[in-house]
Each structure stands twice: as structure tokens, then as C-alpha cells.
């Protein structure tokens, strides 16, 4: 029997198991989820070994030159210390390499966010008011809309209210009005995000149904 039929059959069954969640949580669905998790974990472990650990750490120590061996001594030592995290008794030994990882990741993330997102986006927002942009009505409306949405969305999260009188705890009327507009922008944003999620899920459903149909010969 060709391997494709076997793999196809397994995929067909697992797909049906997943779709059985429509009638409620059942053992078939759970079984298929367990299979997915197990297969994913095994595949990841295999990839990590064959594409990372073996060629980058083991192979240089075995067959690499002296400089390569020296270069792998430090990551080998740090990897060994990081493995100590698996035992509570020696978990403190894994603190140094973990600290190195966390520190470097934080530095890279902060630097990238600052250079790759914050500054460019800020400049882009300011650039909306550039003469070239506002030369047309479309540019003006676009800029105004962006500005209004930006300010209104931020004011929506401003919860400082009055401290005395009968209106204790209430926001000022102007802020309340602008916050209402911001709520509209936020609602539209959330709706768009929901539409994107639904679209992705729908596409996945379409693809699976097509698979099932093609497997059974409906298509």
C-alpha cells in the first residue's frame, strides 16, 4: 500500500477526530490532540538535535579543528549548567547561563523595538502632516482620521475622575466625549482583528474539507 494512502488515511481520521469537537468534547478529539502534541514535540526534538546540537556542538568537538573546539567549550559549559535546571537541587547552577540568555534577549528586543518600531512609527506619524501628504483632501482626511483615532484611543484609557462633589469619580464631559470616540475606534479595531482570525480559520476549514473530499473522491 502506498505510503501516501496510509498517511492520507491517518490524516483523514485525525481530521475527523478534530471535527468531532462539533458535537462536544470527546475522547477522539482528545486522542487526536495528544497525537498532535506528541508528534510536534518529537519533531522539534529531532530538529533541535540534528540541526543545532549535533552540528554546532558535538561535531566540532569531535572532528573540528582546535579553534573550533575552543570556541565550543564555552557554550558547552553553559549548556551543561543550563541542564542543571532540571534538578531542583542543582537548579541554582543554571542561573548564570539563564541570566545571560535573558539579558541578551532583553537587550536585543529593546534595541530592536526602539530602532525598528518606535522611532520609525513616530516619524511616520509626524510625517502624516507633511505638506506632501496634506496636499490632497485624501491626505488631509487620512491624517485627521489617524490623529483623531490616536488621541481618542489614548484618552479612552484615561480614568482620572473628579474628586469631590456630586460627580465624584466621573470624568470631565470633554474627556468623556473623546473617550467615547476612542471606544469606537477600539471597537472597530477589535472587529477587524476578529475578522482576520475568522478568515484564517475559515481558510483552514476550507482546506481541510477539500482534503477530505479529495480523499474520499468527492473532488
Amino acid at each position, binding site marked *: 500500500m502506498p505510503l501516501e494512502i496510509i498517511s492520507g488515511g491517518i490524516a483523514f481520521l485525525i481530521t475527523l477526530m478534530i471535527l468531532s469537537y462539533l458535537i462536544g468534547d470527546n475522547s477522539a478529539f482528545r486522542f487526536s490532540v495528544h497525537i498532535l502534541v506528541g508528534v510536534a514535540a518529537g519533531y522539534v526534538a529531532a530538529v533541535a538535535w540534528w*540541526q543545532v546540537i549535533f*552540528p554546532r556542538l558535538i561535531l566540532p568537538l569531535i572532528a573540528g579543528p582546535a579553534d573550533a573546539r575552543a570556541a565550543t567549550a564555552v557554550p558547552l559549559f553553559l549548556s551543561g549548567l543550563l541542564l542543571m535546571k532540571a534538578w531542583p537541587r542543582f537548579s541554582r547552577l543554571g542561573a548564570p547561563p539563564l541570566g545571560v540568555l535573558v539579558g541578551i534577549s532583553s537587550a536585543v528586543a529593546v534595541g530592536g523595538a526602539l*530602532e525598528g*518600531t518606535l522611532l520609525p512609527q513616530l516619524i511616520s506619524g509626524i510625517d502624516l502632516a507633511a505638506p506632501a501628504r496634506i496636499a490632497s483632501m485624501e491626505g488631509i482626511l487620512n491624517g485627521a482620521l489617524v490623529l483623531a483615532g490616536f488621541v481618542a484611543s489614548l484618552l479612552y484609557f484615561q480614568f482620572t475622575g473628579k474628586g469631590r462633589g456630586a460627580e465624584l469619580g466621573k470624568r470631565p464631559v470633554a474627556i468623556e466625549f473623546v473617550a467615547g470616540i476612542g471606544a469606537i475606534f477600539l471597537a472597530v479595531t477589535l472587529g477587524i482583528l476578529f475578522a482576520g482570525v475568522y478568515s484564517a480559520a475559515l481558510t483552514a476549514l476550507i482546506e481541510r*474539507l477539500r482534503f477530505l473530499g479529495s480523499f474520499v473522491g468527492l473532488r
Partner: protein
Amino acid sequence: MEEVVVCPNCGETNPADLPFCQHCQWRLKTLDGAWSKLEAETPLHPEPAGKGYPGDAPLPDWLEALHTQEAQDGSIREKTTESVDDDLLKGLTEKARPDDELPDWVSRIMGISEGDESRDEPRVGDSAQVPQSDTQARPDEGRASVLPSPLGLDSVEPDFRELREDLSPAEGVPGIEPVPSEDSSVFDWLKQLDASTAEAEEQPERSAAPPSPEIPDWVGQMQGISTEDEAAGELEATPDWVMNPRADGAIKATDDTSVSGAPAWMDEDLSQRAAGAAGDLQYTDASTPPTPTNGGKTIVPAFLPEEIRGLDVDALFASMQAPGWLADLQTPEPEAGGESAGGIKEQASISPVALPNWVQAMRPSEPAPLGPGVGEPGANVEEGGPLLGLQGVLPAVPGAGVPTSRPRSKALKLAASELDQKQASLLENLIAGETRPLPLRGTPPAGIGRAFRWAASLLMLAAVGVASFSGSHVLAMPTSMPNETAAAIEAARSLEPSAVVLVVFDYEPSTVGEMEATAAPLLDHMMILRHPRLAVVSTSPTGPALAERMLDGVLKDRGYVRGQTYVNLGYIPGGLIGVQAFAQDPVATMPFGVAAEPVWKSAPLAGTVQLAEFGAIVVITDSLESGRTWIEQTATSRGNVPLILAASAQAGPMLLPYFDSGQVAGLVAGINGAAHVEIANNGLPGLVRQYWDAYSAGLYVATLLIALGTLWHLWRGYRNRPGTS
């Protein structure tokens, strides 16, 4: 050889005939044995010669001293040794002889004549016998071992001894005359008190029969012993003035003699005080000692005999300053015409003597008026308890002394403003509302929710399934191309021929259906137009496999072969750190391919060692984080290399700002964007077209369901609003 006895307490040896240890005063013999011997040999209270004492023998000095000291101790100390008394009484009881008469000297002391019925009366004064003084003389040794007196009477010893040496039984005390025998009393002052008390008893308030005091049994026994055995030599522990101050035979003070041999200075002092203080000592016959009253009732103390219940308490206290045997030698006031019953004759020949400090300290202080006044009608007189009949007692505070387990609770009132009270009441209502059970509303019948879900699911499956299985191409493709999609197409078209394009596959296997449909038209368009060499890489472990799937599946018509037209660099570990490292040095970060082959020297990547040397970078991702990571980390390293994003519909809207900011060359978001690319690619590969009808049907069903649900909730909200039936 003399018999010796070892003391059980200290272990010292003592003569066998000693009743007490001469070292520690521990009793060596039983009371019976001691007293029986003493009874047989020597009376305790020696009678003067000729007074009818058995044998009419003069008392030895030691016995006289014993009697003296004993009487003195009895007037000073408290009588607390009931147990000793029990022993004494027991011994006396056993040895009592019914036929024995009360010795005269005992009668005189107690103020009871022979055949007097008062003898049968219980005498409160016959209390516990005073334990033998530490300084009492021993029969054989005299005052050999003298221990300090507990009341500090050691200082008295020298005085008394001196006095005793100067006195003889016949001399008595100057200024004190002996009481005639027919009075059978020694204490004239007691007679005087008795007389004054008799007058006071004539008053109506004294007509009430005082309650008989509670006489302990041992006192009764003592009385019986004293009446039965006059020669028993009983000890008189109670001071005589307490025992029977109203004795017929009152003790009179004479200049010459003192029955008890008291020194004259003590008698003189008593007489002076009696004569001087009119309010202290009321020994005169004319005096009317106040009777304790309380609300008209006559309150009689419980611990005093009948004879002295009507007496003035002050007089009684005043009489405490000297032993009884001294008081009978004093005359409180000079009486014209001789003696009177219960009075004390004052002798001019008695010279005042300075009292020692300890005697002066024993003087009672003048009673302070309490409330209505001491002695006045309505004065605060105790009606019960140990202070029965006493006046001037501090009134007890109501509730004082009453044990309470917890302090009294006091109401606390806070100074709260009106606003505070409103807020407090508001809080109270909120708390009460939390605990108040809410009525359960009618729930819809079970099964409606699940049925609605099934119906919606079946509708969706039907629409999508029919559209998919039918292969229909009824619904039209979109026509208005977004700017970001146009820019992506333009960027793909602007590649140099055979340029090396880095393609990043950063999506999960679960989204393979959408991502292949989204990215395949762009890559296909790029492959068809520019025939680029591809370098595939991924930050996800499953990325390399997905890349192989796409290139061998959807894009297999383009004939790309690994190692020839494309290389698979494999998995970049470390997340954003790996991307940063790859952006800085791709060769060092990924030296080998997915199959561990050297790829950087292969044909597809020949001459390319830096990120900036790539023709374009295409990132295929289904998440915002992955796309942003590649945008941020390669910003400085890629230079002018265009970055094109092929994102999922759920990540596309959030990656759009990067396109607006110019950081991304183009963006293909979801099926909608891919449709435009596919249209621009002449409908190739055609996957989007195959999905489009089903995709549109699904969108229509979702839109219909959302609309119906919104209308339903609006109608229910309108129906359930307050004020509508």
C-alpha cells in the same frame, strides 16, 4: 543516767521530761502527756496563797512567770492556733474532772463567781489557747533557751523581768488594790464597763436580744473544762477583758497589789487615759456607750459575748492597749464613794509612767466620723460578715469586689459626618446585597444552545462544503487592490533576474492551508518573472519542512530543486537573537544547510555572504511577533533590500503600519490579498480561485449569522428594558 529525747525536727537531744525542744521548740511530747504532767505537778495559773487553790501552796516563780507571760501573750497575739487548741482542748477534755470546781483565780479572771450561771455561758474569749511563748520558763531550766518572740516582745522581757523582780504577789501594783474575793473578779474596769453596759441595755434599742455569737465547740469544751476542773490549770488564751468584761468581779486597781503582778506604770497609764479621754474610754457608770444601730435595729457583733455586746466598741479597742491583768489594776475614773461593779478605782498615788513606744503604737486612733457619724442613729453599721456591729467601716462601692469576667462595654460613638454616615450606609447596603440571595430567573429549556450551535455549524459546513466540492467559480474575485498588495507585486517585479531571494517560512503547520494560499501566488509570480534563487530559512523548527512542502507541492510546476535553484538553510535557533545573529553574519550563523551540507558555496548562494547582498527578503508568517522580529532585527543590516511580507489575515492588519511607515516594501494579507496577486499572476497557481467560492460562502454565512444575532439581541434588549411589560 538522765533520759534524753531526740528532737524529731532538729535532731538535738533534750531531757525526757521536757515537753518542748529547747533548741527549736518542737513538741516532744503529746499534749496529753505534757499537760497531764503539768496538771499533776503545777497549775498553770497559780492562785495566790489562801485563795483556795488546791494545796494552798505558793506558786513557784516560774509558774507565776508563766502565768504572767501567758496572759500577756494572750492579750497581744491573735488566737489562731486552733489546731493547737484542739490538742490542748483534747488534753484538757480527757483530763477534765467533772467534780472539779473552777479555781477562784480563774473565776476572778473571768469575772465569774462560784455557782454563777454565767459560767455556763459560752465565753467568746475562751478561744484558742495561746501557744506557749517562746520565752516561757521551763520547769526545770528556767529561762534557759529563749527564742525571739514573733511579735517582737523581746524588748518587753527586760522590763517585765525587772518588774517581776520588784513585785511580789502580795505587793501588787501601787495604786491598785486587790479585788475582794467575794466579787470574784479582778478587773474593776470590766465591772465598770459592765455597769455602763447595763445602763445602755436599758434603752429600747438594746432591748433586742442580741444574737448569740457563734461559739466554737472547742470554746464550749473549754468552758466545760473550766467549770468542771477548777484546778485543771487551764490556760487562758483569750484576754480576760475580751472573755468577760462584765464579770461581777471587776478588777479594781489598787495602789498596793495587782493580782496578776502587773507593773504599776502600765496600770497608771491606763488610769490616766481612762480619766483623760472622755470620748475614748467610757468606763464611767454614767457613760452611755453607744449601741451600734442601723436603721433602728440593734446590731450586735457576732464574735462578742453577750456581756459586752452593748459595750462601746471604742472602749473595747481602747482596752486593747493593755493586757487584761493590767486593766483590772486601773481605775478609769475616780469614783466617789468607793467602787462600783465594773468600774476602776483611780488611785491618786499612781504615778504616771512613760509607756514604751510599742505600747503607744498600739493605741487605737480616734475613730473618724463616717457618714452620719459614729454612734449616731443611722450610722453605717455593718450588718454582717466579720465586721458585724462595727461602725465607721468604709462603705463598699457598689459593684466593687464583684468579680466580673469581662469589663463593662461602653458604647462608642464616632464623630462621623453626614457624608461618612451616608457612605457607611451605602457600604452596609452593598454588603447586605452581597449576602442577599437573588431570585433565580427562568432559564431557557436545555438544548436550545446546543441546537443553535449545531444548526449554525451545519449551515456553515453546508455552505463551505458545497462550494468546495462543487468546484464552482460563481463568485467573483475582488477587483480593488489594496496599496500594500500592489506594492508587493511591484516589489516582486522589480527584482533582478536570478537574484538571491531569502524566503522565511515562519508559520505553523496548522495554518498551512491559508499560508500556502497567501504566499504561493507571490512566489509564483516572482519565480515566473525573475527566476530568483531561493534561500529558505525559518525560526520555527517546522519551517524547513513547510518550505519543502510548498516548493514540492503548490509550486512544483516551477521546477525548483534543492541544491540547484534553492537551498534550505534550516532552522535558526534562538528566536530574535538568532535573527539578529543571522542578520549580522548569515554564514557564521547558518554554516550548513538542513542536511548539513555546505550551502554558502553552493550554486544558489554563490557570492552571497551578507544580508545586504540578497535581492529581496520575503517573510511568510502567520503571527505579528515573527513579522515584527524580522522587520526590527534586519532594519540596519539589510540596507536597501526590500522586505515583502506575506502574512495571514489575522496578522495582516497589525503589520500594515510597517508598510505605511515605509519599513516594508509590500504586504499580502490573507486570501483577499493573495487573490489580487493571483489575478496579477494570471490566475496562477489558482489555489485562491479554488478557495474563493467557499471562502465567500463562509463569509456570507458568518455575516448572516452576525446580523441575525445582532437583531435578536436588540429585540430582546428592547423587550426587557425597564418600563415595558
